[in-house]
């Protein structure tokens, strides 16, 4: 039995090499113009975030308080995006803001993917009452509108960017959990898992070596799309005053501050919003492309 199983596995490895699903996926991904466009946008913002100290002409909070002539200046060759009520250069703040939004987006998604995968694997692999408890917990969390649940969590933890990140991560846990759980349930029935069990492999090893890698593709897809929502949710929490605190140049917070200057300084509102939209658009396009390439079944 064990021998045939190993043989089967070998056959599969050889077949994989011939077709190479990853190469095939890459080809599908690169064929899609929108996916490539999305990737370019995402890379652009990642580079902006990484090189913010070089790109931004001014520091995060450099203000010219003493000189009222630099307050609320419209976009010009000196201040590309204009200045805000404290005379801070909005272009610099938008550039610095890329660091914050991307960190919160990635951070929240990685945290929820790890937590969700852990719970999902346990639920799917052990089944029975463990599965029932975890799945019901997911159902209940999913039953809340996500921004509402995030608001409730932040109101316990206190308003800060870090707590906003944690809240968004918790809200997204069931999405990853359910995904992994269903993947585990289908992989569990595969013959090579039966084979692994038959040769006496430990549960933890089966989970880590076989089940987890096989659930990787949908997590990547879900993760990319989740970053888009996480960035919007973080900006929304900051906009409501439940995330970033002054003087952090968080895009949502900048929008909230711009509200009172809507009438005479609309540029304070236009550029941070544009930055959020473009970043989110990039991740959405890239996620759609990845989904078509890696997991066509997930469509719809």
């Amino acid at each position, binding site marked *: 039995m064990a021998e045939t199983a190993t043989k089967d596995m070998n056959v599969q490895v050889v077949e994989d090499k011939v077709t190479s699903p990853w190469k095939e996926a890459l080809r599908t991904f690169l064929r899609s113009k929108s996916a490539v466009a999305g990737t370019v946008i995402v890379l652009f913002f990642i580079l902006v975030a990484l090189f913010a100290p070089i790109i931004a002409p001014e520091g995060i909070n450099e203000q010219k308080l003493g000189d009222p002539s630099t307050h609320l200046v419209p976009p010009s060759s000196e201040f590309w995006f204009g200045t805000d009520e404290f005379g801070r250069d909005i272009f610099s703040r938008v550039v610095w803001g890329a660091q914050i939004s991307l960190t919160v987006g990635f951070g929240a998604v990685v945290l929820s993917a790890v937590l969700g995968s852990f719970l999902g694997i346990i639920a799917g692999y052990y089944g029975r009452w463990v599965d029932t408890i975890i799945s019901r917990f997911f159902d209940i969390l999913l039953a809340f509108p996500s921004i509402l649940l995030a608001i409730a969590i932040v109101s316990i933890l206190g308003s800060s960017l870090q707590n906003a990140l944690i809240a968004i991560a918790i809200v997204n846990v069931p999405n990853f959990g359910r995904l992994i759980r269903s993947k585990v349930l289908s992989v569990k029935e595969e013959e090579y898992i039966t084979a692994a069990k038959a040769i006496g492999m430990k549960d933890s090893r089966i989970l880590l070596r076989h089940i987890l890698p096989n659930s990787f593709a949908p997590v990547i897809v879900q993760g990319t799309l989740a970053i888009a929502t996480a960035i919007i949710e973080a*900006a929304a929490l900051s906009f409501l005053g439940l995330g970033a605190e002054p003087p952090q140049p968080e895009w949502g917070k900048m929008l909230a501050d711009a509200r009172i200057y809507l009438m005479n300084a609309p540029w304070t509102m236009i550029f941070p919003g544009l930055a*959020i*939209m473009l970043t989110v658009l990039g991740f959405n396009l890239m996620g759609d492309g990845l989904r078509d390439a890696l997991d066509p079944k997930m469509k719809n």
Partner: protein
Amino acid sequence: MLHYIGRRFLQLIPVLLGMTFIVFLIIRAIPGDPAQMILGQQATKESVEALRENLGLNNPWYIQYFDYLKGLLTGDLGVSIRTNQPISTEIWPYLAATFELAFFAMFIAVVIGMNAGIISAWFQNTWFDYLAMVIALIGVSVPVFWLGLLEQWLFSINLGWFPTSGREEVRDPIMAITHFYLIDTLIQGRYDQFGTVVKHLILPGMALATIPMAIIARMTRSSMLEVMRSDYIRTARAKGQKMFIVVYKHALKNAIIPILTVIGLQTGLLLGGAILTETIFSWPGIGRYIYEAIGFRDYPVIQSGILVVAFLFVIINFIVDILYSFIDKRIKYN
């Protein structure tokens, strides 16, 4: 059918119970003593202790939860710390305002989104198709709160077409009967007021409608494209049937199920989006009610507000689920 509805309803109960428990835990986990919060910092120790006893805060947590559930079942949502009014009566005008906004937004989203999707599928790969799909793509990525600000800046500050915020003209207040102002003004025959209500609805309605509109348009397009390739459509066209009838009558009928799924899902999600839209447009809805309660640390309102919205969300999804089985007889529930 009835069997299915019954079973689905029974499945709802543990979810709803779980939600009450989670909201209960969240509120209990908030640092600070609610009794102290209600009475303020100057309160004496004795009066705080007396209020704790009175509110049942000295009981073990499971007794507190049980009391809380008992209250909920009898329609007691607690008393607002800020206004000292029972929340169950105070909440209705806010809920009605949110419903009115959400229905209006959904109406815009369905009418524009579905037609954009249908026409895109009909004229696939033309400039209209590309334009509509690019707009739809941007639509799913645009933050609602930014869109709201842009609308205010363009349509009310610059062009002066619509009011920036609120639900009614302050100088000409509306006599509330049902608190659905569109209905109230019609009942009273105040058509001028009806007009101002619509004017107030348009900007927040458009902001709230954008995301569902974009998603509905994309879903309609892909669903229609799939159906348009089928044999019976070719037959209908070969018979010389007018294209308009082929698209809107024959094709749409079979493409509608996935579109309805999306509409259902989005209706629930609108409630979440409403919080942000209401904040921007000072719309006196449930989202704003909760948001202001957070500022005042009015915990009973936060608790009940979140619970009411979450319950509505679950119930809307339940209704949508049931509706499918009526619309598509092919769906068999086991």
